[in-house]
């Protein structure tokens, strides 16, 4: 983070405390977004467009008339996969890069809280992912309109599934940030990827907990089930490809669950990061 931007995040001492904190967080978030754009993170959109264009043009020959379903499956799966890679590889470097470049000293010499710094970094990457997901979603909708040679209801009905993908990426970004607040980027990336995998096996963890004979093992797996994010709840790609919409109540509860989970992760990350010694 350069000096000019660092000076921006300090804020005025006359501003009320909360407004000042939000101003600093927003500045850090904006700067993180700009940094991601400068790092060419959004270049993945080009690859995504190429995949989608290829699918739209060629998949009709291979799919036996199922190109609409396959475009939704392929488009939303690629959106999730690319998003996971960005959340993991950019997320784990958010804090590390600042420490490595020693810009963190300049930031914390000003009245910027460590929690504000982490939250700003988190929201900045979430903004990057939002732009990414929105552009990709628009790409899938356009591809559907192209293969249907006109308006296709799927172009609109896939958006709740896209929202859930974005919420899943928000969780993973939080997890990446949590791990990066106390470990190296490589280990953080590995651990976050494990969380992504285990998060989709949540149902198995629960059934494993129920089938365990010993109470200690049962408690362990039950604890893991509740401790790790249940990402299977956010998986709605396959039904979306059939034009199904998730129940509004389900979406509301899942989003609420995710927001609570993110708050918990960020609180934990702040606790760890606040105790970290940069000397």
């Amino acid at each position, binding site marked *: 983070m350069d000096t000019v931007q660092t000076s921006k995040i300090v804020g005025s001492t006359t501003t009320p405390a909360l407004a000042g904190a939000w101003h600093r967080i927003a500045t850090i978030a904006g700067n993180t977004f700009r940094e991601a754009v400068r790092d060419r993170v959004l270049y993945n959109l080009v690859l995504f467009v190429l995949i989608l264009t290829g699918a739209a043009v060629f998949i009709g020959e*291979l*799919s*036996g*008339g*199922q190109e609409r*379903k*396959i475009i*939704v*499956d*392929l488009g939303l*799966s690629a959106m*999730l*996969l690319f998003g996971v890679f960005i959340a993991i590889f950019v997320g784990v470097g958010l804090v590390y890069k600042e420490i490595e470049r020693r810009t963190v000293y300049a930031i914390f010499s000003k009245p910027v809280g460590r929690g504000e710094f982490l939250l700003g970094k988190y929201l900045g990457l979430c903004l990057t992912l939002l732009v990414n997901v929105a552009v990709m979603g628009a790409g899938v909708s356009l591809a559907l309109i192209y293969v249907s040679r006109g308006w296709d209801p799927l172009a609109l009905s896939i958006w709740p599934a896209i929202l859930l993908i974005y919420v899943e990426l928000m969780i993973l970004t939080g997890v990446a940030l949590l791990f990066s607040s106390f470990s190296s980027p490589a280990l953080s990336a590995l651990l976050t990827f494990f969380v*992504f*995998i285990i998060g*989709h*096996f949540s149902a*198995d963890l629960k059934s494993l907990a129920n089938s365990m004979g010993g109470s200690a093992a049962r408690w362990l797996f039950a604890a893991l089930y509740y401790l790790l994010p249940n*990402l*299977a709840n956010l*998986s709605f*790609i*396959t*039904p979306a*490809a*059939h034009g*199904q919409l998730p129940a509004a109540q389900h979406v509301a509860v899942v989003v609420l669950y995710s927001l609570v989970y993110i708050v918990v992760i960020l609180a934990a990350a702040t606790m760890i990061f606040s105790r970290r010694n940069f000397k």
Partner: protein
Amino acid sequence: MNYRGSIRDGALLLTLVIGLASVVGLSRWLDSYRPPTDSKIEEEQLYLNGTTAKRISLGFNGLAADWYWMRSLQYVGRKIIGVPENIPIDSLGQLNLKLLAPLLDTATTLDPQFMEPYQYAAVVLPDIDLQQAIRLTKKGIAANPSAWRLYQHLGYIYWQQRDFQAAGEAYDQGSKLPGAPPWMEAMKAKMAAEGGSRDLAREIYSRMYEQASNVKVKEMARKRLLQVDSLDQRDGLRKVLSAYQSRMGRCPSSWKEIEPGLRALRMELDSTGAPLDPAGTAYVLVNAGCDVDVDPKSVVPYR
């Protein structure tokens, strides 16, 4: 750029061109000398069953189902390419497609709402493995209890096996579901009254042709409709041949000899006077002119 730099760039460009040309050449050599694929390996059972594949798909199960679905189509397509005849896809029993049922099963386990594999199973599988065809269709019904089309597929399988009672029951059950068209209800009565008739076959294939989104299934239904029409035409032709034989005491040596009879049938004739089948190919005289059949080159299926 100095002289040495130009030399270096030129050498690198040359290396690039020669390297790429060598890669193309070596790949072509490898392709031409590659030993034929072992049929045992080609037909090896799938490593993953549907349940395991779904578990490890990490939320990408829809995409995995698409992949298995396209693999099913490629598997059938590869086998059909190796066969010289123009076989309709509902008569592929001789091709030993033993991987088709597991592939379709995996696709539908990964995405139980994926309707296309169920229809493909109902049309293609009965000639290969009837029990698997019924099992897959019933699996689809269990996963999609409000999908009347799956009952249509089940009815079709039973009708093909001439089990008209079971077929009628399947159509009847499907007709009670919301959104089912009125003809589903009529099918039950038709199955009981005229199960083996051509009119019913015509209706079944017409409905299939109208609703199929798969090009191959649509094409099969179209060919079967041509076949039903052709069977009607051949009945008429046999009557003309039989009348000629009774009158002359021998069978005709060419279509020209029975041209008046053919004109009475109002059939289209080609320049040699041979009647044309519904696909526009001339019929051929067989059994020394005593019987008629479709030309093997015709689109109208033999079986």
